[in-house]
C-alpha cells in the first residue's frame, strides 16, 4: 500500500541562526527526490514549533510531520529518538537525513539503533548512482580518505550530513506543504535522563562559524606563545581564529576554536591557514572559501596544495611579517 519513497529531513532548530543545516538538507532532499520520484518530508518535533513548520514549508518540504506536544518541550535526544522511531515505523521512509550537529548526531545514532538500521556519519555528499542506489560519501579511516557507502538491505537508510555541505534553497513564502499533525506515541517517555537546567553559552565559536575571514593555526606555528599572535592578526584582518586538533590537544587554543569534522564548520570568504598540514578531519570543516592563503614550510602539505596562494616559509615568521605589514598599511 505504501509505495511512496519518502526522504525525511529531521528538523534541528535549536540554533537556527547559526546552523541552517536542516534547510540545506531539504534542498538536497529535493534534488534526490526528483530523481527517485520521491517526496521530501520534514519532521518537526517539539513544543511550540509552528515557526519551523512555516520555515520548512518555504524551503522545499512537500510534506511536514508535526509532533507538537508539551511532552516534547525538552530538547533531549533520548526522547526525540523514541518519537522519531515510532513515526518511522508507521510511515516507513526510504531515507532519513539529519544534520551532523551535536544534537543531530546523538539523535540519529539513537534512532538508528532503535530502528535496527545503519547510519553513516558526517556525510559530505549524497547522490543516487546509475543503479538508483543511495550513495553516501563520508570521511573514512581517520579522515584521510573518502568512502562511498550504500546500504543494500537496511531501511530506512540514515545519514548525518555535515553543515555547509549543501546550499539551501531561497525562501519561497508561496510554497505549500501537506501538513500532518500527530500526537506523540502513547506513553512516550525519554530514556530516564532529566534536564536540570540549560543555558546558551557565550562565545562558543558562533562568530567563527559565521566569520567571513578565518585565520586557522596548526602545529606548524611552533608553540602556544606563537599561536597567540594569530589573535592580533585576526584583529587586524577583522577575522576569527580557528585551530586544528593537535593545537587544541596541546592546549594552545580552546576547544571552541577547533575547526573540523568534530568541531566548528566554517565557511569563510577568506581563509588564512598557518602551519596547518590539512588532514581531512580539519578540512572537512571548511566549506569552499573563495580565497585561501596557506603558509607552511612543507610545500607538499595538503593545505598548501589546496590554497590559492601557498607561501613556503615559517608560519610564525610570516604571521609576524603580516602583522607588521598590515600595521604599516594602516589597518590597525
Amino acid at each position, binding site marked *: 500500500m505504501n509505495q511512496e519513497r519518502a526522504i525525511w529531513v529531521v528538523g534541528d532548530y535549536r540554533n537556527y541562526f547559526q546552523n541552517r543545516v536542516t534547510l540545506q538538507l531539504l534542498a538536497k532532499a529535493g534534488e534526490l527526490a526528483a530523481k527517485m520520484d520521491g517526496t521530501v518530508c520534514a519532521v518537526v518535533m517539539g513544543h511550540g514549533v509552528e515557526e519551523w513548520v512555516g520555515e520548512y514549508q518555504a524551503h522545499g518540504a512537500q510534506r511536514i510531520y508535526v509532533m507538537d506536544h508539551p511532552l516534547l518541550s525538552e530538547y533531549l535526544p533520548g526522547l526525540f529518538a523514541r518519537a522519531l522511531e515510532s513515526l518511522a515505523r508507521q510511515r516507513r521512509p526510504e531515507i532519513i537525513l539529519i544534520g551532523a550537529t551535536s544534537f543531530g548526531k546523538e539523535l540519529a545514532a539513537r534512532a538508528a539503533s532503535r530502528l535496527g538500521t545503519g547510519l553513516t556519519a558526517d556525510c559530505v555528499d549524497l547522490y543516487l548512482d546509475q543503479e538508483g542506489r543511495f550513495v553516501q560519501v563520508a570521511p*573514512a579511516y581517520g579522515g584521510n580518505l573518502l568512502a562511498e557507502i550504500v546500504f543494500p538491505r537496511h531501511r530506512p537508510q540514515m545519514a548525518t550530513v555535515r553543515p555547509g555541505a549543501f546550499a539551501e534553497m531561497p525562501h519561497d513564502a508561496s510554497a505549500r506543504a501537506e501538513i500532518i499533525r500527530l500526537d506523540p506515541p502513547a506513553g512516550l517517555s525519554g530514556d530516564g535522563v532529566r534536564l536540570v537546567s540549560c543555558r546558551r553559552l557565550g562565545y562558543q565559536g558562533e562568530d567563527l562559524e559565521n566569520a567571513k575571514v578565518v585565520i586557522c593555526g596548526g602545529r606548524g606555528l611552533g608553540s602556544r606563545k606563537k599561536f597567540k599572535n594569530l589573535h592580533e592578526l585576526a584583529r587586524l584582518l577583522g577575522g576569527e581564529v580557528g585551530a586544528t586538533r593537535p593545537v587544541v590537544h596541546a592546549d594552545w587554543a580552546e576547544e571552541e576554536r577547533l575547526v573540523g569534522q568534530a568541531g566548528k564548520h566554517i565557511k569563510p570568504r577568506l581563509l588564512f591557514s598557518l602551519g596547518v598540514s590539512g588532514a581531512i578531519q580539519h578540512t572537512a570543516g571548511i566549506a569552499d572559501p573563495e580565497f585561501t592563503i596557506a603558509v607552511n614550510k612543507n610545500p607538499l602539505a595538503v593545505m598548501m596544495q589546496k590554497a590559492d596562494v601557498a607561501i613556503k616559509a615559517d608560519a610564525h615568521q610570516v604571521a609576524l611579517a603580516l602583522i607588521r605589514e598590515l600595521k604599516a598599511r594602516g589597518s590597525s
Partner: protein
Amino acid sequence: MRIVVFVKQVPAVSELPWDAKTGQLRREAAEGMMDPAAKRALEAALRLKDAHGAQVIVISMGPPSAEETLREAVAMGADRGFLLCDPRLAGADTLATSYTLARAVGALSPDFDLILLGCHSADSETGQVGPHLAEELGLPAAAYVEKMALKGRKLTVERVSDGWLETLEMDLPALLTVTARAFRPRPVPMTGLEQAFGQGEVFILSAADLRADPEHVGWAGSAGRIIKIYAPAAQKKGELIQGTPKACVRELMARFGDRLGGLLAKDLSGEEQA
C-alpha cells in the same frame, strides 16, 4: 560500583600512508596508541574509583596489538581488561560494533553501574558508538560530557551540545561519552607497568565467547557496504611564493593586495584615501 570503559587502539600518527593500488591503509606502518578520547573516559572512571571506590573494567575490540592498550589501562589503574579479538568481528560499522560491545557487557559485567566511552575516536570521529550502545542496553545516556558528580545512585553531569550548557541527571546504571577537553588523563605510572603484565589482568575473547550472533557482528552484521574509497581531490593550481617571511608578505601584498582588500572590504594600498 562497577564501571565499564570502552577503549580503542588507534594509529599514533594522524596521516597514515595509503596504498593507492589496493585502497588499504598501511596500518602496520604506525605504532598504535590508546585513543585520546577513550583515555579521557578511562580517566573519568579512575577519578570515580579514586573518590568512591570502584571496579574498573576495560574492554576493547580490535587486533591482537590492541592488548597493549588494555595493559596500559591496567597500568593506569584499571582492574581488568578484555580484548574482543576475532577475525569475524573485523570490518564492523557502528551498528555491528555496538551490538558486539553490548554482548560483551552482558557476558563480562552484566551488573555494571556505569559505562564510559570517548565521544569521538581519533581515527573515525563518528561519535555514534556511545549513543548506539545506550539504546542496545536500554540505558539513560548523555554524550559530550565534561563534568560529572555522583551522589548515591544519582549521577549529575554537565555537557555542552551545540553551544548549550546542559545539566542532566540520571540514575545508575547509565552510559556517558566524554569529550576530549575534560578529564585530562594521568600519565602512566612506571610503578604500574610490571603489574599490568602479570597473570589474570587481561583476557582475550572471541565472538563465540560472547555468544554473539555471527549475523550481527563484523562485516556481516554491518549495514553499510563501501563501494569506493579514494583520497579526496585536493589539487587546485595555486601560486607558490617563497623567500624570507618579509619578502613573502611583500609579494603577497603586491600581487594579491587588491583581491585581499576586496575580500576584507578594506583598502590595503597603504595610501591615504582621498
